[in-house]
């Protein structure tokens, strides 16, 4: 039998070259979706194969990798992808946003401001922002070529006519460098402003749809809106129940079947960091951590 043997970071070198060339063109044309010959990965399409291929093409032995899903390092899919790279590339992993050189994410941008030495790799299910308005690739490609984005504005405007607001809460379309309309992946629109003028390089990989796109550092990213209906990021109006953060995106945790719920940071690293610094929320379950820290201080 042909016993499998795998390369560093799984992908063969020819595939990496192809992806690397696509990444360079993606950076050179911000927001434009570069077609690439996405490979079949040992994980299902729709589970991060695009992000995994981009990460595999850039990752080196000196990198420190962080993987998050829904903002958390501990969701099963994040664990699974982190283990995949630890195994195939022997790369160091971390959950601390500041320490990571490469961060692969699904559905969130970390709360901690990213820095110049970092690359944020997004997993993208449907890269085409116009896809739900026009299912044909031949048509949407023409629209991008002509920068003909009227259809998108009509859709947003119809939302306003119907609901009084733009009824898009996630995967909220943006315009990159005043040219391409781009899908930021299904991040909550709360995260959109973080993409603008970001110090880190942002790369987007869509495996099933075979597209790679990018936002270079310090690039203008504007959420589409209207003068009389400006873009508004949404955040549930409460502090985090664990760390008391007032400006982080929150998960809603249903605590019983009688309507009780609590709100906690979706970015677990950010939340734990704040708790370790002594911040408390109304339901903080981690005062022991602070006690432990105090004891360490006293002992040290």
């Amino acid at each position, binding site marked *: 039998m042909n016993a499998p043997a795998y*390369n*560093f970071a799984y992908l063969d*070198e*020819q595939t*990496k*070259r*192809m992806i*690397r*060339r*696509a*990444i*360079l*063109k*993606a*950076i*050179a*044309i*911000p927001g*434009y979706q*570069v*077609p690439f010959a996405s490979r079949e990965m040992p994980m299902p399409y729709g589970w991060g194969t695009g992000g995994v291929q981009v990460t595999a*093409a*850039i*990752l*080196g*032995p000196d990198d420190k990798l962080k993987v998050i899903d829904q903002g958390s390092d501990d969701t099963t899919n994040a664990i699974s992808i982190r283990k995949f790279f630890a195994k195939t590339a022997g790369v160091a992993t971390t959950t601390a946003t500041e320490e990571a050189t490469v961060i692969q994410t699904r559905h969130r941008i970390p709360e901690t401001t990213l820095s*110049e030495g970092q690359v944020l790799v997004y997993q993208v299910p449907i890269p085409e922002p116009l896809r739900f308005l026009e299912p044909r690739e031949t048509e949407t*490609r*023409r629209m*991008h*070529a*002509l920068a003909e984005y009227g259809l998108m504005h009509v859709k947003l405007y119809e939302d306003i006519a119907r609901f009084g607001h733009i009824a898009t809460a996630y995967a909220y379309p943006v315009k990159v*460098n005043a*040219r*391409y309309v781009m899908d930021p992946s299904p991040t909550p629109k709360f995260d959109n402003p973080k993409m603008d003028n970001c*110090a880190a*390089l942002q790369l987007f990989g869509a495996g099933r749809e075979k597209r790679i796109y*990018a*936002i*270079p*550092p*310090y*690039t*203008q990213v504007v959420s589409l809106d209207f003068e009389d209906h400006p873009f508004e990021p949404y955040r549930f109006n409460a502090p985090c129940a664990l760390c008391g953060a007032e400006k982080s995106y929150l998960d809603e945790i249903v605590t019983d079947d009688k309507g009780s719920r609590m709100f906690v940071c979706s970015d677990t690293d950010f939340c734990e960091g704040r708790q370790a610094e002594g911040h408390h929320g109304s339901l903080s379950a981690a005062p022991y951590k602070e006690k432990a820290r105090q004891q360490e201080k006293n002992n040290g």
Partner: protein
Amino acid sequence: MTTIAELPPGFADKVLSAQSTFRSVMDAMARPGSVQRIVPMAGTPDTMMRATAAIALTLFDHDTPLWLDARMRESSDVLKWLKFHTGAPVMQDSSVASFALIADATALPALERFALGSNEYPDRSTTIILQVESLSAGRAYELRGPGIDGTARLQAAIKPADLFERLGINEALFPRGIDVVLVADDAVVAIPRTTRLVTKGS
């Protein structure tokens, strides 16, 4: 005549050297005007600078048609080395090239003669790898565009002297255009199609 056995070698560690070289080029492309160093070294055929050789080993293969300027093409070592280490086909027609290697910048053809991509597929364009005298000394250029926080200052001795004027086509043609990687020894600077020269008064 050089035999294959006498050709300068490729990377000692193909996988990790290509990765490290790519990251330098990626950083260069993401931060136009910034000088990045290529660390891993391979043997270089004459007329090819160290970083050019490393980029070739990292990005070229059967799927990337190349165009070489007369100085590069003159060297049978360069041709043999490229064929042996990358397998990339060398084309006569510059308008179908994925990459162009320029050793003699004074003879750089008009940029319109390279692939500029189409409005539907602007990525199907030539990346020019242009060897220059220095990326640390020489005239000062002030650059702006995506990847640059405000403006970036590049000090370089670049030929052709009117390179940035020529790259003006990128502004008119966008999203079509030409991306340039400048090479001086082991240093690289990228000028993607979105980068603009800050002119006095702008």
